């Protein structure tokens, strides 16, 4: 596609439920990032995939968070047993090596 696509755009879930967020990167982009942005705040790094290298998971806030990427294609971010503090916009970005990253529109997650 022409840009980074994220789905769903909005997700409301009950506390304790699991959620799965999806990111379709730009074709040919070997690098993929997930960030979290709380309302009016900065970007919190979550995880970085680069080609076939082991992902950098140093930003995942707890073991409730996990992410996978199939080759250089789709990525899913899974949050288990959601908590209210998980409410945020989750942003995905992709890039070619060493270039600027292009962002999707994000998934707004609300945990009630």
């Amino acid at each position, binding site marked *: 596609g022409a840009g980074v696509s994220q789905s769903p755009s909005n997700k409301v879930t009950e506390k304790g439920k699991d959620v799965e967020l999806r990111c379709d990167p730009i074709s040919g982009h070997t690098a993929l*990032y997930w*960030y979290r942005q709380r309302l009016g*705040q*900065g*970007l919190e*790094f979550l995880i*970085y995939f*680069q080609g076939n*290298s082991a992902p*950098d998971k140093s930003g995942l806030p707890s073991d409730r968070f996990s992410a996978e990427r199939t080759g250089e294609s789709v990525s899913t971010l899974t949050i288990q047993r959601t908590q209210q503090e998980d409410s945020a916009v989750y*942003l995905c*970005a992709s*890039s070619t*090596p*060493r*270039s*600027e*990253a*292009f*962002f*999707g*529109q*994000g998934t707004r997650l609300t945990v009630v």
Partner: protein
Amino acid sequence: AQSVAQPEDQVNVAEGNPLTVKCTYSVSGNPYLFWYVQYPNRGLQFLLKYITGDNLVKGSYGFEAEFNKSQTSFHLKKPSALVSDSALYFCAVRDVGFGNEKLTFGTGTRLTIIP
């Protein structure tokens, strides 16, 4: 490890005046530097980048940034601010040739242009 600092959470500028949004960085290898803008309820948009070459780089919407290696800075500038420039601005760095070269963002600066 690489890091980026945006020392000002908020910058206010009168319309028509020049604006500067500050950014400093720390890397072990070579810095690739980027600026992004986020308008309300919108995703992040790429503005400009420094990879190599001229220290002054020009980008979208009339913005430019100056790479200063000795001061490890990459400040964003515009000669004449518009009200429509009001947004959240993020500086980012890649530490090239060292480590995994992930893109690291600063905490953001909220720019408000006062009519």
